[in-house]
Each structure stands twice: as C-alpha cells, then as structure tokens.
C-alpha cells in the first residue's frame, strides 16, 4: 500500500500507525519530495506511477489537502491501484462527480472521501482508526461517520463482539462506495455473520438499505442513526448531513428500518444488546 501525502503531519503519523498494525506500507508519494525515506524507512516517490512501478502496490490511502485530493484519487487509479481510500475531507462535490466515471473506467474502488478508512481487525488497516479498539470477529460495520464508529466498535469489542471488517464510507453527499454498495459487499463476505449499520440524517441511503433488507438480505442487521436532535436546514458538520425540504430526517430512517423489522438502537451502547440477540 502507498500513502499519498506521506510527508504531511497526518500522512506521516498514520503511515507509522498502519505499519505498526501490520499493514504492508511499501511507499509514500509527495510530488517534489521523491528520493528520501521517512523515519520508518518508507521510500518516498514523486508520483503514483513511480511508486506502483517501484513497489508493486495495489492500494493507496490519501492524506492530501482537499484541493489536491481529486487529482490524487485519479492518479492512484491511473497508476493501477484497485482500492483507493480517501481520508481527506472538504472535496468539492463537483470534483467527486468527475472523479467517479474516471476511476470506474479503470476498475478502481474508492472508499471516501472524508472517510476514516477500512480495517480488518488483526490483519490490516488502511486509514486513521485506532487499531487497539478493534478485535477479530464476525460483525461487519458500515458507517457514514468516523469517531461515532469508534464509539460503537469500542462497545462491541468490550462485549466480546469482534469485527470482520469496518468500513467508513465517509460523510459527504457523494462518495465512491455508499451504504448499499457496502451492504452488498458484506452480503457476499463469508467472514461476516451480521452487520452493524451506522447511519445519519441526510439523503436516503438508509431508506434504500431498508428496502434492500425487505427484498431479502442474507445477514442480520442492527442499526444506529445519528441526528435526531438536528434542526432542519442546518448542515451538521458532514457535508451530507442535512435535513432539507423535510426529508432525510432521523425519524424517517428509523421508521424505514422498523417497517422491515430491523432494530434501531437508542444509544451507541445499545447496539451491543441488539447484536447479541441477533447472533
């Protein structure tokens, strides 16, 4: 895996953390800073093409400023990375709608932007989540949030419920891999027995996930929705978290899951009780 933006504060810090967790970090890219090595001995390249050619990497994680992130995603895709995880936040939506057809043509899966990354506990993490709160197990976690996911994973782990993989899809209105895409990935994953879905106000992905469950979903699902107390018309931090024109409310999302018999937790800790009943 290559870290784009490895010479920055966040990129450097998390490259070390990922390496320590066991992720095969084989290189970094910062244009104009190629040829050196980081404190951990990771070689830095000027471009993704050179980094991929020099290391054989197939994955990239991005920690560059928002204005350069769309370009970084396309560069990684064009260099042949099959998986690109974009941690950077603040990408203009216009950039995202142009990036998506470009990377689709090249067969790249994008997680994010504005994502905490993905982790398969005990094996590898690509992102910024603290590794020590996770444990190996059979629960898949998909979330539009970062730190709220940590909170819920922390409870799961303490209750002895380990995770197969945790995927933070990002809080933007338009992301590379959305809730439904991730639900499909978990449906096909043999290591995942049940899924925790962490949604929030804005958009209708949660309602569509409920529809997917109504149509027959092979795994048990427990849900938490954030933003019950959010006032309408106000953006709650995430660019995608906004109740507009009376739609996208937490109440609607909870009702959609209730209608298909899926339990929704009132507090992050309650997810544990729900998942224990389910598996």
């Amino acid at each position, binding site marked *: 895996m290559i870290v784009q933006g490895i010479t920055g504060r966040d990129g450097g810090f998390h490259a070390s953390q990922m390496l320590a967790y066991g992720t095969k970090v084989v290189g970094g890219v910062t244009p104009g800073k190629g040829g050196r090595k980081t404190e951990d001995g990771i070689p830095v390249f000027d471009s993704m093409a050179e980094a991929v050619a020099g290391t054989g990497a197939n994955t990239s994680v991005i920690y560059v400023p928002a204005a350069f992130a769309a370009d970084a995603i396309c560069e990684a895709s064009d260099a042949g990375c099959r998986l690109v995880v974009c941690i950077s936040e603040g990408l*203009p939506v216009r950039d995202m709608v142009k990036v998506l057809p470009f990377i689709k043509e090249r067969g790249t899966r994008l997680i994010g932007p504005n994502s905490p990354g993905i982790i398969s506990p005990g094996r590898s993490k690509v992102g910024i989540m603290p590794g020590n709160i996770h444990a190996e197990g059979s629960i898949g976690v998909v979330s539009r949030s*970062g*730190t709220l996911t940590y909170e819920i994973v922390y409870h799961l782990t303490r209750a002895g419920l380990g995770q197969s993989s945790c995927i933070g899809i990002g809080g933007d209105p338009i992301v590379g891999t959305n809730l439904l895409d991730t639900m499909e990935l978990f449906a096909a994953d043999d290591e995942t027995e049940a899924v925790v879905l962490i949604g929030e106000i804005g958009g209708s992905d949660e309602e569509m996930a409920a529809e997917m469950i109504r149509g027959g979903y092979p795994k048990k699902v427990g849900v938490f929705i954030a*933003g019950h*107390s959010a006032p309408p018309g106000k953006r709650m931090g995430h660019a995608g978290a906004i109740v507009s024109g009376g739609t996208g409310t937490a109440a609607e999302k909870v009702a959609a899951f209730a209608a298909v018999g899926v339990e929704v937790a009132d507090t992050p800790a309650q997810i544990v009780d729900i998942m224990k009943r389910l598996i």
Partner: protein
Amino acid sequence: MKIHEADARGIFASYGLPVPPSRMITKAEDAGAAAEELGCPVVVKAQVLVGGRGKAGGVKLASTPAEAVEKAGAILGLDIKGLTVEKVLVAKAVDIEKEFYAGMIFDRGSRRPMMMVSPAGGVDIEEVARKTPEKILKLTVNPEGGLMPFQVRRLSSFLSGDKAVARQIGRALSGLYDAFMGSDASLAEINPLVVDPDGKVWAIDAKINLDDNGLFRHPDIAAMRDDSDTDPGEVEARGADLSFVKLDGRIGCIVNGAGLAMATMDMIKHFGGEPANFLDIGGSSSPEKVLAAMRIILRDSNVKAILINIFGGITRCDDVATGLIEAKEKLGLDIPLVVRLTGTNEGPAREILKKTEMIAADGMEDAVKKAIAAAG
C-alpha cells in the same frame, strides 16, 4: 453558502441567461430613479436569505416610479421569518404568459449532476414533487460530456410545444447547467422561468446555493457572503474552521467528528437534557481549535456546563488536553467542564489534565449524565 437573489441573477446573466435588468437599493427614495432608469412597470423584491418572500409581502409590483418608492418603503424594514429586510431589488417587470420551474442539484443516488424541470412553475417545487410527481422531469448528466443537446431538447419540449419558445428555454437550461457547474453550486434554481406575451423567455427569479468546499476556487463568489443574519458564533466558528450550529439548551458540546457530535446531542436529549449546540472540532484538531471552540461556546450565557467528548483517531487527545488547559487559563472558565477522552494519545492527555479541576467521565454515557447533572 446562500447568496442573495441579486447576486445569483448576476451569475446567471454572466452565463447568458435572459435575466431582466435590475438595480439593488437600500433606501426607498432610490427606488424612483431605479424605476425611471429601468422603465415601468417594475417589481420590488426583498433581498433576504429565506424562501417564501412573496407570501410574506416581500415582493410587490409598481407601475410608476412614485409607486416604486412607496412599495420599497413598505418592504424595507419588513420582518420575513425573523430576518429584517435591509436591501431590495428593483427589477424590470415581465408580463407572465406561462411559468416553469428549472433546477440543478447533485443527485446522491446516481452520484451525478441532475436537472429537474416542471411546467408547474412559480410554486414550491417540493410540494409539486409530493402531490404531482408526474409534472417533474429529471435527467442526470454525465459531467464529462455535459448536458447533451438531446437532453436539452427533451427537457425543453417537456415544458413547451412551441418550437420558438422551446429553443429559448433550451438555451436557458444550458446556461443553468453551466452556471451550476461553473460556480461549484450545490443548488441552482430558476423559479419561475417565464414566457411573456411576445413569446420571449425570461429568468425572473434566481437562486444559487454554493458548495462551501468549492468556494476556494471562487473568491468573487465567496465575497458575496452576507453574514448579517447569521449567528455570530457560527461566523466565528467558520473563521476557526469548526462546524458549529447554535441550539437553545444549557449543555455546551465540544466533540470530534460530526457523527459523534450528533450522537452526543441525541444522547443528551435521550437522558432528559438539552444541548446548547452542535460543535465538531474536526479531524486534525490543534490546541488552538479547542481554545476557539471554548470561546464560541462561552458566548452563549444559557450554557451552564460544557461536555467534551473526544474519541481520538486522527484527533490526538493530548492536543485537546493542551487546548483545554489553555482555554481555562485564558478564558476564566467558571462553569463545570465534563471531560471524556478516549483513543489516540489518551495516556499523555491524562497526564496533562492531572492538575486541572474538571469532572472526568468514563465513557460517553457517563459523560452525558454527568453534564446533565452539572448543568442543573
């Protein structure tokens, strides 16, 4: 970011949309000269950043310059949904034969730009969508090719069977698409797009909301920001690169991450308290951001306790702790501080906070309950 209709009209006009000429004024007596210059009749329109101006009496027609002065005088100072009208637009009036709706958004489902048009113009489009969805045509656009001529023909013929009118509508829709993409908008609307008795098409209203994340590319548009009706805390938060939304409760919240911040507010309500705000200090938080967050929250005299809920990932708990110490020293904090820190560099953070007076909490639920108790 929202901008005034007058500014949105300017952006539309620069993309070739047929926008009737207009003048912005702040004094009623200037409406006469504006009406004289534009030629009567004119329409006098309140410039406030909310919808429903017409129903609130903020849009009036005037057939003489004297009447324009009178109408402008009636609208200036008017209260529309809590906002005071300080500016009015005097625009050349257009006789309306037919009115349509045209709008652009990013569609979250298809992950593409989407144009929506409807022959039911001049009314709330969300209501049209609920009651008569068949009256709306939506087309998604591949941004690589842009809005294609066949799509333009399909959209414009949905609105008008008259070929000459449809051609003009088509040009307006292409302009709308270009204005939306070119200005990094999150919404661009013409409601209504009208046909006058001579068969000429006009965009007589204009609305553009900008994608905050795209503003760095458009300093000219960023300068259109009008904060006169925004909560001062929200303005200060923007300057400090924090997300802040003011609410009415007694418990101030400082949280890292939007999802956790929302969940914290929800939990305060769940256990019977009321949050005073939403505040996300963001990912790469620095001590300075924590200090700024504390300053913003302390502006609100309703706040009786502050809850700090941090689950460190990219945020380092020691940075937050350093910021809290600094805030206590600089801001003379005299209300209880409930602190929950878990995650990255949690150990060093505990060391930093050892000698400070605050209520330590073990977990989010404990922190919320302690904050509710502390706020009284």
